C-alpha cells in the first residue's frame, strides 16, 4: 500500500521534471546522470527499505530457529527467544549428535539421494537425448506421453496400491523409483540438446561413431553444465523429500532424516530415547526440533551458493524456448 502511494507521488513530480528536461536531454544516459527528481529518490529509498524488510523477513525464521537451538528451555517456554539465543546451551546438540537413530536416518538420506539421483539422471538423459532428435520417428508420441503426465496423474490411492502390490514397501525402491523422471527437468534437458549444433554430431557419425558413441564421447562431454544443473535439481529434491518415505517405509531403520524430523514435529517421537526428563518433554520439544532442523539444513546451506547459480541458469535455459 505504502509502495503504491509513493509510486503515485513519483508520477506527478516526475512528469513535471521530465517534461522540463526531456527536450534538452535526448538520451537516457544523460537523464540518469542529471539530477534525479525528488519523487524518484523517495521511490528508490522506499524500494530499498522494502527489499531490506523482505530480506529480514525471509531470514528471520532461520535466525529464530538457530537462536532457539542454542537457547535453554526456560527462555523458549517463556516466549522470549527471537533473534538471539538466551541461556546459551549446547546440550541438545550433544544429545542429538549422540543419537544413533539420527545418524542412521541421516545416512539413509544420503543413500537415497545418491541412488535416486543416479537413476533419475540415467533415465532423464537418455530420454531427453532421444526425443531431442527432431527426425526420430515416433518422437512426438514420446514427448506427448511424458508431457501428459504433467497435467494428469493417477493420484495418491492408485499409486499407493501399485507400489504396495509391487512389493516395494519397506524397500529403498519405493523412495527412489516412483518419481524418477521429472518432466520439467526432462524438457529443460531436451531443449538443451536441441540447441546443440547438429554439425558436431554429424561429423562424429561420419567418423564412424555410433549413436551411443556420439552421446557418450561427443554430446555428454559438451553438456557438463546441464548435467550438473540436473544433478543438483534432482539431488535437492531428493534430499528434501519425505512423503514417499512416509507412505511406504514402516521400519524406522530405513527412515530418511526428514521423517525423523517429521515425527518429532508431529510429536510421535522425542529425540532419540534420551529426550530429557519426562515432565518437560513438551517444553524442550521446540529446542530439540530447532536443533534437528539446523542439523538438517546445514548440508543444503553448504551447497546452496552453487546450487542457486545452477538453478538460475537451468531455469533460464528452460525458459529460453518459450
Amino acid at each position, binding site marked *: 500500500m505504502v509502495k503504491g502511494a509513493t*509510486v*503515485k507521488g513519483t*508520477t506527478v513530480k*516526475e512528469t513535471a521534471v*521530465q517534461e522540463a528536461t*526531456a527536450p534538452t536531454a535526448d*538520451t537516457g544516459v544523460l537523464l540518469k546522470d542529471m539530477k534525479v527528481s525528488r519523487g524518484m529518490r523517495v521511490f*528508490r529509498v522506499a524500494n*530499498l527499505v522494502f*527489499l531490506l524488510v*523482505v*530480506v529480514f523477513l*525471509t*531470514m*528471520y*525464521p532461520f535466525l*529464530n*530457529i538457530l537462536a532457539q537451538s542454542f537457547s535453554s528451555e526456560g527462555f523458549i517456554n517463556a*516466549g522470549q527467544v527471537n533473534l538471539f539465543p538466551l541461556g546459551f546451551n549446547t546440550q541438545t546438540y550433544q544429545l542429538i549428535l549422540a543419537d544413533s537413530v539420527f545418524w542412521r536416518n541421516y545416512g539413509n538420506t544420503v543413500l537415497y539421494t545418491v541412488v535416486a539421483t543416479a537413476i533419475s539422471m540415467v*533415465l532423464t538423459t*537418455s*530420454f531427453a*537425448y*532421444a*526425443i531431442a532428435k527432431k527426425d526420430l*520417428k515416433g518422437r512426438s508420441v*514420446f514427448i506427448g506421453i511424458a508431457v501428459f*503426465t504433467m*497435467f494428469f*496423474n*493417477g*493420484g*495418491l*490411492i*492408485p*499409486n499407493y496400491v*501399485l507400489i504396495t*502390490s509391487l512389493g516395494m514397501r519397506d524397500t529403498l525402491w519405493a523412495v527412489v*523409483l516412483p518419481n524418477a523422471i521429472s518432466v520439467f527437468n526432462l524438457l529443460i534437458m531436451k531443449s538443451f540438446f536441441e540447441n546443440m549444433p547438429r554439425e558436431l554430431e*554429424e561429423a562424429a557419425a561420419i567418423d*564412424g561413431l*555410433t*549413436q551411443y558413441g556420439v552421446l557418450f564421447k561427443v554430446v555428454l562431454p559438451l553438456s557438463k553444465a546441464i548435467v550438473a544443473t540436473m544433478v543438483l535439481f534432482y539431488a535437492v529434491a531428493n*534430499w528434501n523429500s*519425505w512423503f514417499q518415505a512416509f*507412505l511406504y517405509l514402516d521400519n524406522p531403520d530405513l527412515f530418511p532424516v526428514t521423517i525423523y*524430523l*517429521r515425527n518429532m*514435529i508431529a510429536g510421535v517421537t522425542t529425540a532419540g530415547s534420551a529426550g530429557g526428563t519426562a515432565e518437560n518433554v513438551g517444553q524442550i520439544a*521446540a529446542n530439540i526440533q530447532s536443533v534437528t*532442523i539446523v542439523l*538438517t*539444513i546445514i548440508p*543444503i546451506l553448504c551447497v*546452496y551458493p552453487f546450487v542457486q547459480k545452477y*538453478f538460475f541458469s537451468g*531455469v*533460464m535455459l528452460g*525458459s529460453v524456448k*518459450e
Partner: protein
Amino acid sequence: MAMRLEVPPEAVTTNPPGSKDKPRNKPGGWKLAIKRDWRLYTLVLLPLAYFAIFRYLPMAGNVIAFRQFQPGGSIFGEKWVGLKYVTLFINDPSFWQAFQNTIILGVLTLLFCFPMPIIFALMLNELRSQKFKKFVQTVAYLPHFMSVVIIAGMILQNFSMTGTVNQIANTVFGTTVNFTQDAAWFRPMYISSEVWQTMGWGAILYLAALTKVDESLYEAARIDGANRWQQTWHVTLPAIRPTIITLLILNIGTFMAVGFEKILLIYNPLNYQTSDVISTYLYRVGLESSNFSYAAAIGMFESVIGLTLILSANAISKRLAGTSLW
C-alpha cells in the same frame, strides 16, 4: 558388432540433409527408422517403461473408484460396483467441506501468492546496485530449497504459543492466540507462510524475462517523456506478459492440489473445519481408514477438475491473449 557399425554411415549417405524428414514420415517407414535409429530407441525403452509403470498404470488404477477393492488383491479391484463410491462422496458433508476449503485456499493462493513474485521482480529490477540485487535474490531464494518438513517445523514454531508471532501479539495487543489450533487462523497462517516460501523463487522466471526486454524500448519511452512508472506500465509489464500468463495457467492447473504436503504436516483435527482440503481428506479416508475405492473416487474427481481447469485456462488465454502452453 561389425555389421551394426556399417549402419550409421549408410544412413548418413542415403539421407542427404534437406530431404531428411520426408522418407521417414511415409507409412511403413518404421522399418527404416528402426534400422537406422535402433540405438536411440533402446535409449527410450527404460524411460517409457518408467512412464508406463509409475505414471500410466496408476491412471488405469483409478478404475477401483468403480470397483470393489481388496487390499492385497488385484490393483484393478475385484468386481464392478458402478457409481456406488461416487454417490457416497457426493452425499458426504465432510467431502464438501474439504471441497470448499480447497476452493477458498486456492483462490487465496492465487490472489496473494501469484502477484507477489511479479511485484518483487519489478522492485528488484529497479535496483541499480547489482551486488545488492544479487544479495537480495540469494536470500529470497533460500526458502525454496528447504524441505517442506522444515518449513512446517518453522511455521509451527513461529506461530506457537511462545513463538514470534505471539510475542508480537502479546507486545502490541496484550493477548496471545493459539494460531496453530484455531480454525479461524489457519488460512492466514497458511497463506502468509506460502507467500514467505514462494515469493523469492517465484520471481526468477520474471527476472529471466526482464533481462530480455529490449533496452531501446525504454529509451524510446523516455524520449516520449515517459517516467519510470509509465515505463514500467507500458514497456516492462507488456514485455513480461507472456510469462505472467504462462505461469497463471500453470498455477490454475495446480489449483486443486493446494499445498497437500504442507497442510498434512501443519493441520490437526482442531482446525479441519478450515484446513482440510480434498487431498488431505482423501489421504485420511484412503490410507488411514483404508477405504481405497472411496478415496480413489475422490482423487479421480480432483484430477478431472484439475485437468479441466488447466485445459480451459489454456483455451481462454489462447483466445484472449494469444499465449498458451500448447
